[in-house]
């Protein structure tokens, strides 16, 4: 019957005024040993990834291999069409006219790479996700406008409501909000 803090709260959210304050807070949070936390800002902040030690990014690799697949599919399709499926002799010109296959191969490379990359970005980000516990905090609407937020999540093994509150207050935020889980 007694709900644990872990299930009642998604986390604790602190609001900051500037990107620099948020970066400093993220650094401190990481240093304090928290791992399940995230920062929110209306625009990408260059220093933040570094502060959060968020270096893993598989997107470039995914895009590269998707492009490679696109190239093979594009070129293979044309070779198959012209040599195997329907060889057509046009004034004795070679069937395997590879220079003529380059434009479509290129377009297929770009198309595969671009679409796979965007879908991978959305999938890794867990989007689309129309609702999220954070949207329950009214102030959070500022995260897309002019304020900067840091949320320590309850899934962090170190998460203790009191301690997290105390820790975040030490970072001198403008406000602290509890984020309830739904």
């Amino acid at each position, binding site marked *: 019957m007694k709900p644990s803090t872990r299930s009642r709260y998604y986390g604790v959210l602190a609001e900051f005024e500037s990107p620099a304050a948020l970066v400093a807070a993220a650094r401190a949070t990481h240093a304090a040993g928290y791992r399940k936390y995230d920062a929110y*800002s209306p625009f990408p902040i260059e220093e933040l990834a570094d502060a959060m030690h968020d270096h893993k990014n598989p997107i470039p690799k995914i895009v590269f291999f998707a492009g490679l697949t696109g190239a093979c599919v594009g070129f293979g399709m044309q070779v198959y*069409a012209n040599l195997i499926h329907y060889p057509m002799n046009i004034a004795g010109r070679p069937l395997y006219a590879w220079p003529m296959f380059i434009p*479509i191969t290129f377009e297929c490379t*770009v198309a595969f790479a671009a679409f796979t990359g965007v879908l991978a970005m959305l999938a890794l*980000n867990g989007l689309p996700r129309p609702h999220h516990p954070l949207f329950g905090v009214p102030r959070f609407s500022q995260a897309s406008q002019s304020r900067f937020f840091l949320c320590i999540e309850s899934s962090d093994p170190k998460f203790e409501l009191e301690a997290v509150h105390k820790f975040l207050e030490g970072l001198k935020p403008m406000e602290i909000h509890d984020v309830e889980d739904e």
Partner: protein
Amino acid sequence: MAVSNEFEPSVSPTSRLPVIGPGHTYASINEKISAIVLLRGTTFGWLVGFGIAFMIFMMMLGSISYLIYKGVGVWGINNRVGWGFDIINFVWWIGIGHAGTLISAILLLLHQKWRTSINRFAEAMTLFAVACAALFPVLHLGRPWYAYFLFPYPNTMGMYFPQFRSPLEWDVFAVSTYASVSLVFWYVGLIPDLATMRDRARNWFTKTVYGFFSLGWRGSARHWHRYESIYLLLAGLSTPLVLSVHTIVSFDFAVSIIPGWHATFFPPYFVAGAIYAGFAMVLTLAIPVRWVYGLEDFITDKHLENMGLITLVTGNMVGYAYIMELFYGWYSANEYEQFMVHNRVLGPYWALYVALIVCNIIAPQLLWSKRIRRNAWWLFAISMFVSVGMWLERYVIIVVSLHRTFLPSGWGTYAGTFWDWTLYIGTMGFFLTLLFLFIRLLPMISMSEMQMLLPGASGAPQKGEAKS
């Protein structure tokens, strides 16, 4: 003093004009740009503009209906000139579209900060221009309802694949990839701004619609990290893509053997022409928009000047190509090529050639003057000349080359008919209708990217700009 959001003009080293007006904060940028959509409402001026554009768009639909009812015989195309207005307009529109990708992708890779405020707008222009462009070759098929024959698909005829050795088929792949990748690039750029719109919307309906399209974006740093990498990669992919599209469009001509088309310098010549026409169109649209919506803080005189400079540079590249075209004709020592040059300059269509030279080579020379480059009226007038000139260029390349080729017995003339003109002018209505809707419904300047121009946005402890 801790980092403040107060503004200091972020001045680019090459010029004293700032890329964003003074006094802006993170909040003020959002307020100003989103207010155009959320607070300004539907104004009388917008309704009038949209109404006119919509009527012209309806004229296009009427023209297409009659075309489909009667067949392509209603156009001016004939046995001699099989590629008339439709291919001219196709190349013209798709060229216009290229400036959008250039601004959004190439200038991003080159770290040109001034691109930020015109990027969204120019990308929208790309999409709408490509939509207009794609109509023409499809309608030119004669039986546009069979347009899907152009794509490989399994069918009962046993012919699963189109002819991949034809440049026209390359066009199908190039244009469809370009249109779809541009759309995705544009949409990815919009996601964070749609989230801002969702959070600023005041009523349930608006909030829901923007919320739906924002995909639940919440600005997480981990999300931004992946977002930025894919955005940059899309820019990297779009850059060769945009060059490939007009290269392939030029192959439609260059791979043939028609005198005046069969030239190896067509790809760079066409790409330069596309960028030239595109920047002229961005100027044509950005100048009135910035005036009507009071966006002088975001689209500053620096933007206009830079666009003027690119117009001047690409215009001179195009001018060089015109001279080379004449030179090649002479140097080929080929009777047909030499006749083509003669016929182009002194033949029955000489007046178009003269107009082309005036619009595309002489008019942009005014841009050498700094005073003219920084004057919106002058730029607007010059951009109009360029748009007309680039249309004439395609007219001269297509019609004048085709109407007199190898055999004098096959010579003829060509002129657009009423239905050619209504369709062409109608696509301008289509374009403007989409543009009016875009301005009314979406933030026309990227808010998150504009915020990044403010000092301190990189998150560095001191004044942000010093670090990089």
